[in-house]
């Protein structure tokens, strides 16, 4: 394991020019794809405003908002004081006025000072007002580990939000989804927590300007018949590798990228499990109370008679996110996924 640093690779400098809008399929990094999606949304709707720390001149610590200040000005790209509760709370006020705020939380671990405003305000206003008030707020959160960072920079807090009724939760895994789903999130009249896999920010892929299918739909990344391997975010790539490795061993693994973590596309999940009878769920977040348990409970309820073995979880441990030199043990990797596949097949332990 080597220590990667955040932005250890040199980043393209801001060129000060407005990028051309995406009109045809182009190869973009995941970070640039979100940038393109934000830009498209801002061009389409003057009520879309960005709020966050360092998102202006710097373009965000991950450069996801690069060049947008220059193009849209300080009333649309708002560098805020250093206070997360206020970032979310003022977004609520802006939504009261008809805006569609997009908040950037600098790193996953810094969302908690804003937790009260998210859980007690953003998530509830539509219900509270019997539909009179909408909260079309998108909260962007770079999440997950594997970048060798210091504490609070590698977390996976998604389960706190999937347990919070009134929120939608999305996690993207590739540039195309990053582009399409950020646009859908912003267009949604419901609040959306939008999780971006920070260790995949600089991985490039083709991006078409299409909006694509609804962000509520899971995506079957690789079809298979023996085991269903369910995941989201950065681990989709690892899971796909695991499926290839398993194939060498004669095991056919179906990999599903959930994309929407709340609600979950159980139609797609169920169809897969009816076929395979075996489920492995993998995520970076801690096991207890993580999304894996919820999915397994629901799948057990829906597909009990189809299950040939107890579903298996391959997750981070029930520990605070560990120090960089230990994160390789905490994070599910290819070996641990294969171990999970073996276990659900009764081949091990």
């Amino acid at each position: 394991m080597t220590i990667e640093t955040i932005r250890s690779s040199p980043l393209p400098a801001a060129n000060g020019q407005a990028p051309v809008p995406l009109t045809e399929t182009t190869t973009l990094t995941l970070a640039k794809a979100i940038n393109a999606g934000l830009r498209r949304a801002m061009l389409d709707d003057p009520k879309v405003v960005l709020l966050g720390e360092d998102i202006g001149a710097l373009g965000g610590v991950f450069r996801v908002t690069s060049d947008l200040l220059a193009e849209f000005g300080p009333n649309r790209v708002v560098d805020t004081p250093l206070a997360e509760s206020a970032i979310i709370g003022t977004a609520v006020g802006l939504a009261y006025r008809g805006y569609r705020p997009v908040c950037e939380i600098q790193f996953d671990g810094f969302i908690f000072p804003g937790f009260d405003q998210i859980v007690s305000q953003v998530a509830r206003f539509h219900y509270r007002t019997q539909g009179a008030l909408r909260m079309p707020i998108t909260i962007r959160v770079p999440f997950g580990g594997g970048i060798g960072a210091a504490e609070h920079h590698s977390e996976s807090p998604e389960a706190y939000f999937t347990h919070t009724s009134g929120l939608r939760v999305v996690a993207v895994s590739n540039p195309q989804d990053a582009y399409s789903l950020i646009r859908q999130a912003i267009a949604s009249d419901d609040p959306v927590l939008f999780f971006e896999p920070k260790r995949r920010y600089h991985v490039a892929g083709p991006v078409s300007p299409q909006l694509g299918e609804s962000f509520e739909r899971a995506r079957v990344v690789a079809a298979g018949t023996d085991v269903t391997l369910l995941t989201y975010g950065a681990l989709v790539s690892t899971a796909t590798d695991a499926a290839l490795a398993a194939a060498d061993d004669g095991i056919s693994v179906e990999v599903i990228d959930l994309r929407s973590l709340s609600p979950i596309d159980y139609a797609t999940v169920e169809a897969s499990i009816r076929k395979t009878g075996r489920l492995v769920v993998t995520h970076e977040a801690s096991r207890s109370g993580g999304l894996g348990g919820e999915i397994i409970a629901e799948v057990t309820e829906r597909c009990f008679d189809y299950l040939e073995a107890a579903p298996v979880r391959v997750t981070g441990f029930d520990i605070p996110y560990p120090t960089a030199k230990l994160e390789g043990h905490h994070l599910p990797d290819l070996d641990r996924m294969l171990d999970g596949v073996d276990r659900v097949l009764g081949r091990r332990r």
Partner: protein
Amino acid sequence: MNTVHTGGTPDVLLQLLSPAGVRLADADLDPWVAEMTGNDLAALYRDMVVVRRIDAEATALQRQGELGLWPPLLGQEAAQIGSGRALRADDFVFSSYRENAVAWCRGVAPTDILRVWRGTAQSGWDPLVHRMATPSIIIGAQTLHATGWAMGARFDGADSVAVAYFGDGATSEGDVNEALVFAASFQAPVVFFCQNNHWAISEPVGLQARAGIAGRAPGFGIPSLRIDGNDILAVMAATRLALNRARTGGGPTFIEAVTYRMGPHTTADDPTRYRPAAELEEWAKKDPILRLGRLLDSLGLLTPELEAETQAVADATAAELRAGCIGLPDPEPLTVLANVYATPHTGIDRQRAEYAAYLASFEPTGGKDS
């Protein structure tokens, strides 16, 4: 403008009306109430009497089991009516749970104010219709909403103003301080209207703010005014002054309205456990309604007609309130699962269908008891 404190702890308490009802001069505040007529004063008097009556009737309804809880505003009528009546229709109020008189000023029907406390709805009114947000129960949260709204008003080039109402206790919450930071940074057109009613449930204001409430804002770059909150003229003048600053690009202003919570925190509270009786007696002498009454009297305006008419409006409002409250329909069972999202959602849709089926399974015997 001397009365706007840009630094230090203002210890002057601005007044335009003494407790005895004598009109006092203040060069900065006077212009803002200069054009008030006797009719205007009478209208304010009527407002205060009526909201006090609403308050008493709601308290009675709670005692009779018709409301789950009620947070009385007794003693704070001038602070709320004086500020509420200073607003323009296009301004937007973000309040706490005690601002029932402000809701009255925003045209909310008294019965609608009760919905939350009877438990039939979580928002008594449509916030966009009355341009008054659903009152915040989480202390201080609404000050950020007001600030965000005001930032939007500035982005839009509008001259509408957001007004955040909150209590003395709220000033300790991080959110309120962050709101001051944002409002100052973005020069947002927001008025922070703090009713210092001396208590946060059982805690005296001195526990929250050692240096005085109005002294806090200047350190954030926000000018503040400390006014006698039981003096409706001072309240109205100060609010108009602050609104005008905001409308004309002057940014945020902080108003501390020094008043007193003469009742319990809510109907569930027993202030005798923590509050010296003498303090209440002292403040009873500074009653805001008596005070305006005395001014009206000295002007020869407290006529039997005004008294009678005011009484009639109060009686009618109370009767309407009582009937309205008791007549509030219970929400339909399945609304429990409605409006969680603005757009269709597979998770909630399924739970709704399941619960509908479950309820239907009781149908033969007359439905689930609820």
